[in-house]
């Protein structure tokens, strides 16, 4: 108990004084996750919209697979990315293993299905509403996707934030492909695991507080957004 209290006090000290390590690790976490989420959204949102307005033979199967991919175990994603990027792997020549880029790649793979699946659900609802009008107006498929993505932007933001929440707290994949290297690939989650292992509780708790604050902020944002969605009917 004393450990925890002492830890909390020094953690607050680290945060208030903007401890160099703490800031560096937090910023890297944000950099990796924000980059990954931006890329995942750039792929997932249009894909979700496309899936809503396109009829093709294996559509139902594609949607089922996409939903299943939402639950992809990060450790397995990490393992596969590790094998692909390792020196003997097909992408070994790029020397990406144990770099932030490798971590971004792994997170993109984890987050894209989440964003695509959630945005598909939201867009499908809107498409059901708009269908007759957009067909009647002789819109092209691209115009339909554009209208749905724009008018559904609040639910799509919620989907994207959900992906962010998932990625920022993720450790399984980035530990494997990033290696938790000091000043290079260490992020909030991997640093906490390390500091706990070393017994350095103040830093671990400080990092934990930052991580929890970020997670709560994201969840709050999602909550507020989905509330305004319901009240304003979107």
């Amino acid at each position, binding site marked *: 108990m004393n450990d925890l209290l002492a830890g909390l006090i020094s953690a607050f000290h680290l945060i208030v004084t903007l401890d160099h390590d703490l800031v560096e690790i937090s910023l890297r976490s944000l950099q990796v996750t924000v980059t990954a989420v931006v890329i995942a959204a750039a792929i997932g949102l249009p894909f979700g919209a496309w899936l809503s307005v396109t009829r093709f033979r294996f559509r139902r199967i594609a949607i089922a697979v996409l939903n299943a991919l939402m639950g992809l175990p990060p450790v397995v994603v990490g393992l596969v990315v590790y094998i692909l990027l390792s020196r003997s792997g097909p992408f070994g020549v790029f020397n990406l293993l144990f770099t932030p880029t490798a971590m971004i790649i792994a997170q993109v793979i984890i987050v894209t299905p989440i964003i695509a699946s959630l945005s598909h659900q939201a867009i499908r609802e*809107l498409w059901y509403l708009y269908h*007759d*009008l957009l067909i*009647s*107006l*002789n819109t092209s498929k691209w115009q339909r996707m554009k*209208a749905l993505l724009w008018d559904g932007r609040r639910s799509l933001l919620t989907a994207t934030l959900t992906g962010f929440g998932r990625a920022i707290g993720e450790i399984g994949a980035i530990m494997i492909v990033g290696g938790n290297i000091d000043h290079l690939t260490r992020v909030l989650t991997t640093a906490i695991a390390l500091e706990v292992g070393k017994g350095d509780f103040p830093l671990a708790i400080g990092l934990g507080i930052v991580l929890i604050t970020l997670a709560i902020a994201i969840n709050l944002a999602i909550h507020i957004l989905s509330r305004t969605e319901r009240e*304003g*009917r979107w």
Partner: protein
Amino acid sequence: MVSSILPLTLKDAVVRKGGVQIVGPVEFALEGGGCSVLIGPNGAGKTTLLRLMHGLEKARSGSVSWNGTQKDVRLRQSFVFQTPVVMRRTVRENIAYPLLVRGRHKKEALVEADRWIDEVGLSASGHKEAHILSGGERQKLALARAMITDPDVLFLDEPTTNLDGASTQEIEALILRAKADGVRIIMATHDFGQSRRLGDEILFLYRGQIHERGQVEDFFDHPTTEEARTFIDGDILV
């Protein structure tokens, strides 16, 4: 560009859904000007027939043909749905949308939309989110959005069914104005008064088929079929 996408010709057209024949076979042509009213009891197939003419339903057999290239035909007709589709945008953005689809610049389209907002009497609501509009206002939005493209043909599916008396009057006035501007109107209703006020001719639809077609007064005063007579007398048709 052709002068008009009319005449519209239906030849033995049939619509089937879920193995059931909902409309057809129907055979008629629409040309000239004015307002043709599709009248008939609920479930007669009015909505389906309008959607078939507009191209939202496919004919299982028979044909629906317009005068002009496919693209012209698509772009020069508008459809107002029974329940207006309201996009999650402001009123003026809703009304401007068909122009954006046609490649017009946003600024220009919004200026045009503002003109139509005044025209239909939504001036106070132009910048509001469209979803807060009342039923009557939504129908006005839908009418403005349908008219902004300057269509040859306007389809209306029971445009005042869920509206109160005052809104109905306003909507009917707008429809009459469109008609006076030379827009060819094809509308569905089950309201006799409305078909007398707006219509030039009646097409009586019953169980998916046109049983009678004639001038409004003739239809109501001298129906020639048993079904039409029963319908006009207000008996329940099944």
